[in-house]
């Protein structure tokens, strides 16, 4: 999915929702990956874990800093990107593609309305 079709949080996560709004892939934006710099370790929730909207669900360790990973939605983790375990640098290389973090089975589709569209996100990071 292209960034133009994704939704965004102010914590720099992207959300790619499937057609019937039952499931969403989640990652961090190119801007966030660039700000963090080289990512060396990502702690993700396990498959089946319950996550809550805007609550921490993991951590991202970069060489210079560490960041919390927030869940953009409430629901259940339905898939975890296992490739990030040994190759977290994928997130720096392909934040919107191969660098996805988890898929979440959406519990409350109403939460999607609170997310920004691409234009609003770009405006927020000063790149409109």
């Amino acid at each position, binding site marked *: 999915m292209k960034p133009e079709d994704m939704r965004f949080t102010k914590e720099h996560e992207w959300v790619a929702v499937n057609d019937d709004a039952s499931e969403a892939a989640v990652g961090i934006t190119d801007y966030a990956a660039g700000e963090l*710099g*080289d990512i*060396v*370790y990502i*702690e993700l929730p396990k498959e089946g874990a319950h996550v809550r909207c805007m609550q921490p669900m993991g*951590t991202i*360790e970069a*060489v*210079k800093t*560490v960041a919390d990973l927030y869940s953009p939605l409430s629901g259940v983790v339905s898939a975890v990107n296992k490739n990030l375990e040994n190759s977290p*640098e994928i997130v*720096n290389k392909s934040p919107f593609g191969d660098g996805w973090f988890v898929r979440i089975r959406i519990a409350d589709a109403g939460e999607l309305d609170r997310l920004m569209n691409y234009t609003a996100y770009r405006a927020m990071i000063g790149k409109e």
Partner: protein
Amino acid sequence: MSPKRTPLTGIHEGLGARIIEFAGFHMPVSYTSILEEHQAVRERIGLFDVSHMGEFFITGPNAGRFVDELVTNDCRKLAPGGVLYTVMCRDDGTVVDDLLVYLIGGGRNPEYMLVVNAANIEKDFSHISAHVSGGVSLENMSDAIALIAVQGPASLELLGRCPFFAPAMDGVSSLEYYHFMRFEREGETITVSRTGYTGERGFELFIPPRFAAGLWSELMQSGAPLGIKPVGLAARDTLRFEASFCLYGHELDDRTTPLEAGLSWVVKLDKESFIGKRALAEEKKKRPKRKLAGFELEGRNIARQGFRVFCGGRHAGAVTSGTYSPTLKKSLCMALVENDPSSPAGAYEIEIRNAMMPAQAVALPFYKSRAKG
């Protein structure tokens, strides 16, 4: 006060570096990727702007005795052209700064250059000034000297390719580790020092600011076939960390003694006198309360400065520096911990965001280059 620019800040901006304020200077923290910059120095060559470092000159008939009293290491061993790593302490043995002492000229009117940490320039200058006595003059030349570091296995080859060093290459290529030579260019002094802060073979080049931009470009151009990369402060930190060099503000600070920080090798208690000697001799006799230790974490979480270290379930100290080692591909940290010989080995844990992570004590340095300095 707004941060100072080095003679190379404009070049870093042009290269798209991420610039931060560090020790009162606009400094490049990274140009592309910390890991790539780090690897360039370990495998090929990297170029650093370290013009923020401070340079003091101490001259006069009593300069030799003065410098030897000021620092803990033995300056009497220095011959002209030699460099010495040392610390200077207060009377109570705590570290004012770690520094390099260059003996430029000996004889009856000796001349020394002291290279100090950027963040400590003012503190160091007032500490030294307070001890200056007759026959000694002290001058802060930090703003009149730019400093470029060339580090990596190909560093000597690079200098050989630069026309800038052509008149001096005989001397440069025979420089031994912790030695320097000087030559004249357009009436100004260039100092080439075989030193560095990366654990890799390399040189530090002290030049007048007006030469800095031209020399940087020449080094980048001549180094292109060798795979040179400009390297920022972030990779400078991961490089020095792997080599387990102390960084002031981390392993050393105003409350730490050199004996705690693993620097007893630069504290020469057999010297007749130096500032802090009595306190350090006493500390050594009683055994230092803390020691600097290296740890390897089992996971890949990073133990960062200030994280608490536990030994056998008891709070035993704090992390001073920690990162994921790009060369060794492990999560490593240094920590100041209780110096208790009865501590059971392997019983360490580090608290990372409310979780206890097992950590194995490992010997320092973490990394040693095959080609020294």
